[in-house]
């Protein structure tokens, strides 16, 4: 079974982002970039499925500019056999990304599409669902457990009410949530091997994709600041403060 895994290059989750004072966006120059943590979980799951003998080929894909190649090399170091780089500089919004990924999924004739539930930069949480909608495939989002057999998958999802289990026919789209797995640390030999694995570059035009009409960002500002709090010394002080505010 062939699995396609989509990965995104984002600002590292540990970075405290700075908003540019002119309102034009978030400072990303010179800032540490990494693979979106949810996509690392997707990569890890693909590799585990192969280790269990359920999956035979893993192809990684990304939509983005030239620098995104490093993210594909990370995917290859995880264990992807080869990668596809849909080269597009600048911001690409989820609908356009989904159209590109849907085209790659069809071209690759894969059975399972794995990707993170959301990217930690735009927090959109749309791409996987959009690919499923465009291709009329089943979708199982926010997965915390995946069981594959030849024709289908049983997926447990983290939802507001608890844990929901669905059965989906393959091919299907599954988006990953935090507790699906804990990604492995990449070892130097795998990172070195990754340098030799093939990456195929392709454009949106070559995939037959016209970018969708995009949202226009008018301005970006920091969130309203909370007023400074007070450090108390005793539980009695806390109880008085809360009573004074009418909270208890």
């Amino acid at each position: 079974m062939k699995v396609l895994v989509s990965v995104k290059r984002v600002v590292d989750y540990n970075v405290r982002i700075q908003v540019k004072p002119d309102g034009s966006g978030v400072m990303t120059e010179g800032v540490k970039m990494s693979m979106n943590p949810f996509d690392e979980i997707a990569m890890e799951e693909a590799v585990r499925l192969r280790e269990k003998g359920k999956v035979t080929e893993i192809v990684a894909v990304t939509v983005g500019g030239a620098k995104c190649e490093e993210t594909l090399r990370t995917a290859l170091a995880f264990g992807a056999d080869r990668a596809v780089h849909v080269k597009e500089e600048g911001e690409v919004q989820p609908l356009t990304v989904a159209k590109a990924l849907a085209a790659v999924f069809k071209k690759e004739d894969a059975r399972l599409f794995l990707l993170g539930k959301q990217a930690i930069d735009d927090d959109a949480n749309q791409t996987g669902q959009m690919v499923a909608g465009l291709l009329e495939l089943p979708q199982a989002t926010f997965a915390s457990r995946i069981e594959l057999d030849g024709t289908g998958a049983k997926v447990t999802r983290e939802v507001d009410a608890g844990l929901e289990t669905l059965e989906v026919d393959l091919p299907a789209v599954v988006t990953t949530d935090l507790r699906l797995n804990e990604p492995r640390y990449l070892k130097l030999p795998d990172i070195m091997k990754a340098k030799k694995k093939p990456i195929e570059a392709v454009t949106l035009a070559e995939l037959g994709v016209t970018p969708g009409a995009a949202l226009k960002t008018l301005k970006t500002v920091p969130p309203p600041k909370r007023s400074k709090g007070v450090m108390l010394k005793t539980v009695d002080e806390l109880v008085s403060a809360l009573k004074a505010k009418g909270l208890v």
Partner: protein
Amino acid sequence: MSKILVIGEQAEGKLNAGVAKVVAAAQAIGGEVHLALFGKELGAVAEGAARLHGVAKVLKVERPENERALAAVLAPQIVELVKQGGYTHLLFPGTTFGKDLAPRVAAKLDVQQVSDIMAVHGPNTFERPIYAGNAICTVEAPEGIVVATVRLASFSAVAADGSASIETVAVNAAVPTHTRYVGLESHKSERPDLQSAARVVSGGRALASSENFKKYIEPLADKLGAGIGASRAAVDSGYVPNDWQVGQTGKIIAPELYIAIGISGAIQHLAGIKDAKTIVAINKDAEAPIFEVADYGLVGDLFQIVPELTAKL
């Protein structure tokens, strides 16, 4: 004039508390507001929806396949409703139901969705959070239908003083059979729902066990009539169930009072509580980032402080 369709979330005959907040967002956009409900047999839940202030019509879409909310089953029906009704806006609650469903519908309508609307500036202009809410963008949606999820913590529920008409609609849409509901593992609780509770007591990894959550957090929550939340670390460690997680990728809440116990305050956790009116933090580490956002901070041993607090309230 705008014509807005709110997709109502319901389960087991109860309307999700967030729907009243989505209606508030619809009011902020302005125009005629309809509310669609999907289920096998809707009954009383439609009457509750019809009371939401400002809703003109409640549309009931009843068929056996709608017994459970499956995105692949509901999406084609919503697309058909949109085409029939000529809606300009399609709004979903920012719940796991809405987040799962909305983008599938948006893609089928060839629309770039706006996720997690926090504020409305105009019929096409909205504020939304990025980078775990550490930056707020004002975005303008292009010409055409607007599809959006609404960040529930950013809106106040509309009153239940309306009287919309209720209509059963037949939606001519083929639905797939490739996705099947198997089960839901949920724990019923007498406790207020975390997403909508006025007061929330939350525990972090420092609690060190699920027994400690029961021993320390639950009595405090009981005393306050509060919901219970947790940090990702506490959930990952298995102390509490996944649906108690508060944060960037868990629940985003806006209670009157949020008490964070043994929670360090990682960026991702703070994303879930930025709109809490009053934040109290109890942590033995005076340098913990949670104290940067807390209105009241108490440095000390939670295993001493929490029982004392519970007793004195």
